[in-house]
């Protein structure tokens, strides 16, 4: 029993690390743009396909494929923000959220048009599982979790030590005040869309490397990503990371009590519980 639990916890931490990358993207965009951007799902898939092309057609190793996924999804993010969301900036947040659903629908079907509905896999060396005591770890998952953590560290450095990172945080705290202080909020918005959707794309690549990719790859995990962000408090980056690990572990652990096919429901239940008992999340600040 204890072995099972430890094994599930280890799996949960590894999947949580990947979720965290997407959840950071979601929550940082929420902090600055103030609406839940549902097109994260489409951007995850877009990034995954970009990484897959880089890997299978150009033979790039996973870290470089990851970078490709990041850049392409970030680029799509900036484009979709510029074309669709920017003209709607003054509309109600929910209108933007609904528009973002349409963006996702568009991206997913563009991928479907180009690649079909078939599952595709990355071209990665097969390796035997590592066995440490009674813990069994897939080298690929460990590598994915490692890459996810490296991505988060890079982000941390950007946010903490660069001028731009500080400007982004200032805008997230109070957009009006940031504008008064001479920060170009429109530029920050573009940057945040790039970084946020880029992270979604990177997470898409990591998910794809773990199993396989398809146009609805993002949609299938989006609830877990939202749950991670809500759990940590919408808009809080450390909260999203914490929330993602919690969701990752709880999703794995849930398999002890419910069939694995209900894994997708765990996020929803977590959201309901958190919102009922602590609406601002673990690390959420204000609830206005």
């Amino acid at each position, binding site marked *: 029993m204890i072995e099972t639990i430890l094994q599930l916890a280890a799996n949960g931490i590894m999947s949580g690390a990947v979720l965290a990358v997407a959840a950071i993207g979601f929550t940082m965009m929420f902090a600055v743009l103030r609406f839940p951007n549902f097109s994260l799902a489409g951007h995850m898939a877009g990034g995954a396909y970009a990484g897959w092309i880089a890997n299978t057609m150009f033979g790039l190793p996973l870290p470089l494929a990851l970078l490709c996924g990041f850049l392409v999804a970030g680029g799509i993010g900036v484009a979709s923000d510029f074309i669709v969301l920017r003209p709607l900036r003054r509309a109600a947040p929910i209108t933007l*959220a609904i528009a973002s659903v*349409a963006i996702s629908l568009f991206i997913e079907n563009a991928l*479907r048009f180009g690649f079909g*509905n078939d599952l595709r896999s990355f071209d990665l060396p097969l390796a035997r599982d590592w066995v440490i005591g009674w813990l069994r770890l897939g080298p690929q998952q460990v590598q994915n979790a490692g890459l996810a953590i490296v991505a988060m560290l890079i982000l941390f450095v950007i946010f903490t030590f660069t001028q731009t990172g500080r400007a982004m945080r200032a805008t997230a705290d109070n957009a009006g005040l940031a504008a008064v202080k001479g920060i170009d909020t429109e530029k920050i918005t573009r940057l945040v869309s790039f970084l946020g959707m880029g992270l979604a794309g990177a997470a898409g690549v990591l998910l794809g490397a773990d199993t396989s990719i398809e146009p609805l790859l993002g949609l299938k995990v989006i609830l877990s990503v939202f749950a991670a962000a809500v759990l940590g408090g919408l808009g809080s980056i450390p909260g999203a990371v914490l929330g993602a690990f919690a969701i990752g572990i709880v999703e794995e652990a849930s398999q002890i009590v419910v069939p694995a096919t209900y894994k997708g429901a765990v996020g929803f239940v977590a959201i309901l519980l958190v919102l009922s008992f602590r*609406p601002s999340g673990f690390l959420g600040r204000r609830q206005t």
Partner: protein
Amino acid sequence: MDSYLIAMVTLAAIYAMMAISLNLSWGLAGMVNLGLAGFISIGAYASGLLTTVLGWPVPLAILAAMIIGLVSGVALTYVTLRLRDDYLAIVTLGFAEVIRLAIVNELWLTHGSDGISGIPGIVAREYGYGFELGTLALALAAVALCYWLADRVRTSPYGRNLRAIRDDPEGTAVAGKNVTLIKVKTFGLSTAIAALAGAFYAHYTSFISPEIFQPLLTMYVFLALTMGGTGNNRGAMLGAFLLIFVLEASRFIAPSLPQFSAVQHAAIREMLVAVLFILTLLYRPQGISPETRHR
């Protein structure tokens, strides 16, 4: 009347019920429901199962489906009452996904992705043309009833409260209205109508499966309402007919682009839906038949 036309109008009538349902919660009260497909599927499965498994008469099953839709809507709003709009969007989206998961996984009840077939018609299917015309007449009658109800609501003091909540829930509470209660009641009425639409769909097509109730369906209804005119029940109906027209017109994509596969045709069609939705939001957010000023 031509069978094709009858089928299209019947389908449009079913979408019109969905659009009226969405207009009640989202259009009038500003309560976003991204889980509409979930409530529609609840109605479809409830009525489908009650008639095929328990052999209930169709009208009774439809009534039960509406009650189940109402109860699930009330339960969900009750949990999400204190939530801000953006959270409500996430929670309703998640709700629909959980319903879909349950339908896919509870094989003993729903036959999973195989779906349920052989659902009896509201009018006996043996009547052929009579079934088609009869169902059409009943669907139109149901839309008329939904429209009448929803417009009674809209033009009443209750509807004024709804529109006040849409603008400013806190201010409405200060005006002396029990905002919570109003929201719960309205959402329940709206999900009951969504379930009615689902039940109608099940009895009309005789076959339902989780494939049919994807998030895309919710998107279709949002598109219909936005094109027609959010906040306006007539706009909701107009939008539903427009939606069917757009979806049917997009069938001509396939023959005109024979170099692409069936999957690609479907993808083009959904991209068109997405683009149409975005264009509507950008250039005509008030819809073709905008909400009118109340005098």
